[in-house]
């Protein structure tokens, strides 16, 4: 089982074993990791599962789709590390991925 290392904005860490095939969003909500609302359930419709992933891990991820890009684009808090966690599907390749939870989403 690949592990996701969630880090809340205040530094609290949650190391969670994810199921292959689950999104990072589902991994968070299924394990009470705070700061990910995911109101639309993973449809890329609400942008309430915004996370920050550094460049090194981003390099291992599929690029953002047009829809994800559009949902992120106009967020004033968007950074180069921004992703929507419902769009990132866990696999063994992502074992150990570090996912930072932004303060603005609390």
């Amino acid at each position, binding site marked *: 089982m690949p592990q996701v290392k969630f880090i809340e904005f205040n530094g609290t860490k949650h190391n969670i074993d994810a199921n292959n095939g689950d999104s990072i969003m589902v991994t968070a*909500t*299924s*394990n*009470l990791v*705070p700061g990910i*609302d995911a*109101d*639309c*359930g*993973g*449809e*890329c*419709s*609400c*942008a309430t599962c915004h996370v920050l992933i550094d460049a090194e891990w981003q390099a291992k991820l599929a690029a953002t789709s047009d*829809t994800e890009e*559009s*949902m992120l*684009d*106009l*967020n*004033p808090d968007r950074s180069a590390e921004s992703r929507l966690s419902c769009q990132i599907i866990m696999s063994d390749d992502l074992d150990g991925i570090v996912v930072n939870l932004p303060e603005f989403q609390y």
Partner: protein
Amino acid sequence: MSGIVIIGAGQAAGQAAASLRQGKYEGSITILGNETQPPYQRPPLSKQYLSGELGMDRVMVRPEKFYADQDIALHTGTRVESVDRSAKTVTTSSGDSYEYDKLLIATGSRPRILTIPGSDLSGIHYLRTIDDVDSIREAMQTAKKICIVGGGYIGLEVAAVAVTSGLQVTVLEMEDRILQRVTTPEMSEYYHELHAGRGVNIRVNTGVSGFQGEDHVSTVLCGDEKMDADLVIVGIGIIPNIELAEAAGLDCNNGITVDDHCRTSDPHIYAAGDCTNHPNPIMGRRLRLESVPNAMEQARVSASNMLGADKVYASIPWFWSDQYDLKLQMVGFSADGDTSVQRGDKATNQFAVFYLKDGKVVSVDAVNSPREFMVCKQLYGKAVDPAALSDTNVELKTLLN
């Protein structure tokens, strides 16, 4: 042992339980739901779950073991019969009784039922639960002609799935246009043409007067006219489930009346989701919504306040609907506007119609236009230059400054 009891096991219930544990609540949490599944997402039911694109595991909000892991007592298949506010207990149909310190009513809503001649024939379905959709899916395997009663979002989403899977589809709408209750004539026309172009036969100004068939429906009657159909889906609106609250003497008025903290007229009882009638401080009026984001956020607010916080529920309503390859995202209510401003070309199936009132943005219908949807959430209540808003050469970002 008393603690927090939640009536209903839909999305609001599941979110409230999770939020309570996230809020470090260590007392007992009991969820009593009359469906047989743990909390699941309803929006995909008329879309990707109906089409088979998403299976049951993807529709679940959280895996079933989550509830056990978090020491949340989830009682599915359990119908609550009554709430005794003086004893602070709820009693189920099997006679079990649960004490509560705080109670959350998240009973949701149910489909409005047709009661006309023949409406009890088999082959006539409603769509609200996963069980409903499982039987619709099974019926669609052999059905050839499907008749959808009601041209609202549920009916049109089903029409899209059904026509795509090769069925002959007719939509009957009583009003003079589809989506009459929820959108503008302009958007109704766009969606009418979209479905007609895909082969859906839409009949407006057409009320259903009855059904005929031997046990199973075979004919839909619209006055003197007869129409063949071997499967009927009725989507004519929902009714909030307020009966328990009403019988317990809680204030109700088109929903369970709650304040901006999601509290009912009893300080120990909260309510969240489709069943509530709540104030919206941003819009300055009361609303009853049929909406997942509303259910989720009211659940979070209820949970916080049950744990002693002082949280106000104040969100701008938003909605979405998937039909074919089109994602419609909506903010606010188009009926609130006095002017509409279109951005993009309808012919491309990628456009947005913004609605302004006194020059301020109050709503958007955004088709395959997530940027416009997101910008509307930020522009809500703010004045914009309509000419800039309609000009696709003007970057949306510049409107936010």
